[in-house]
């Protein structure tokens, strides 16, 4: 865990309303793993007060990338940063995806901005594993396939490709993946993660998801980010410290 002031190198709108920010941050780049996140202070003033969590989207040499849309005040300020402005980063935080289990085929299932952590995961896996990416969104503009490979897409309104949600799309494609040792990596809204969990558990597929939740600190001191554990009903796990990536078997989403 570091706190660094890192200069923005570039910010671009990779598709309508979706921003990719490239940040020069060698220390973080060296340490961070896919699925881990950064807690970013977007302003020196007291509004917004708290840091904002973002998944590491990708790493290239000394540069890290984050991907976001303008959601509220914090992301708006972030989108207005100029090259050379510095941003205050606390990270790397949380546990990333476990990529040393026993699998030969990685399946990425993402909804909307849930695609954010996967360019980096894809970069690390693509030479050694087969990858299938199932990417969904409400509508054509919400489908983000940036730097992913072997992509199939779904939209809730049918405006692009498969008409339905991304978990249905994944499920329909399951038969074609039958003889592989799968591991599923999921990220997206909770409703989607719940559906994904059901599919994976009933098909006995190893699945990790990156979860989201309101956070204050990001490193375990505020207790602001509880998530119900399947094993212990007498205490919560913390999304920031015990997650944000969990095996679906371990948490009640």
């Amino acid at each position, binding site marked *: *865990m570091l706190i660094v002031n890192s200069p923005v190198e570039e910010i671009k709108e990779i598709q309508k309303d979706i921003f990719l920010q490239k940040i020069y941050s060698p220390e973080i780049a060296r340490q961070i793993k896919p699925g881990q996140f950064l807690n970013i202070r977007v302003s020196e003033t*007291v509004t*917004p007060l708290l840091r904002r969590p973002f998944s590491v989207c990708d790493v290239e040499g000394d540069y890290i990338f984050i991907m976001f849309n303008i959601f509220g005040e914090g992301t708006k300020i972030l989108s207005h940063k100029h090259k050379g402005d510095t941003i205050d980063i606390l990270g790397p935080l949380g546990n990333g995806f476990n990529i040393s289990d026993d699998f030969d085929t990685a399946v990425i299932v993402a909804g909307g901005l849930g695609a954010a952590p996967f360019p980096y995961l894809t970069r690390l896996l693509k030479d050694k594993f087969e990858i299938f990416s199932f990417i969904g969104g409400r509508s054509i503009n919400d489908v983000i396939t940036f730097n992913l490979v072997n992509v199939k897409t779904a939209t809730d309104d049918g405006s692009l490709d498969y008409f339905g949600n991304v978990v249905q799309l994944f499920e329909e494609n399951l038969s074609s993946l039958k003889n592989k040792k799968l591991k599923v990596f999921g990220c997206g809204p909770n409703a989607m993660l719940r559906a994904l969990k059901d599919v994976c558990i009933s098909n006995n597929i190893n699945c990790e998801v990156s979860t989201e*939740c309101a*956070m*204050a600190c990001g490193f*375990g001191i*505020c*207790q602001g980010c509880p998530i119900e554990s399947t094993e212990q009903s007498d205490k*919560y796990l913390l999304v920031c410290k015990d997650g944000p990536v969990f095996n679906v078997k371990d948490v009640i989403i």
Partner: protein
Amino acid sequence: MSKIDLSVNIASLKLRNPIMLASGTVGYGNEIAEFVDLNKIGAIVTKSLSLKPRKGNPPQRITETPAGMLNAIGLANVGVEVFLKEKIPFLKQYDVPLICNIAASSVEEYVECTKILTEEETIKAFEINVSCPNVKEGGLQFGNNLSAVGKVTEKVRAVTNKPLIIKLSPNVSYISEFAKVVKDEGGDAVSAINTLVGTAFNIFTRKPKVQNVFAGLSGPAIKPVALAKVLEIHQKVDIPIIGIGGIMNWKDVVEFMIAGASAVQIGTLNFIDPTAPIKIIEELEKYCEQMSITSISELTGSYII
């Protein structure tokens, strides 16, 4: 080496400087130790402990507000037993006064917790939380009731000789009346303030943003209120005050001390910049130098009104 004396006293408790880390904002010290050299801090206050472990409230527990945040953690904590077994060993490694904050839902539970913990010599003082707005029992039921605060102080006082600090609720008309009761019943100091009661709603779902509905407001937004409470106590009651609420930098610390605080606690700021407490200590020293203050305790209650 500097000649400025940053040390302060809270009753018989001597701190190397007035910067304490507030209950509920540093857990049990292990995470924050990655950022802060605990040996440089005035004191550390644990997350509120209860007799038995508490799971705390279901999510969502926090939300941001203008220059502040609401929390309703619900006193999630490991309980006295696990604390002694698993958390104390880590804290023992450091030369920093450890203050145990206790929360309970009955006078008996406060007493019981204190009795058990007072045996542990690593614990240098107690801070009794009678003012948590986020639990159904205990909490404000005690904190907004003069005789309950008196009773808790009296009964806990009877079972420990260690410095006894009562953390007061700001959700009252005249906080100095509570400070007076604490003094009368043998308390050594008061902490002011705990969070203000607040809430927030999502305007599309019409649901409360924090699951518990009512939550505690902290952060810079509450600083003027906290300062007024500290000043009120200082003007009315002769008891050491630990100032808390919205401290973001060294200037805020000086402001609290001028208003009457002997020491201060840093809360929400730890979430935003866990390295801040150390920076603040350094900057306080510079301020004292610049203002020709040889002992920082001169600042306490030095307002010119």
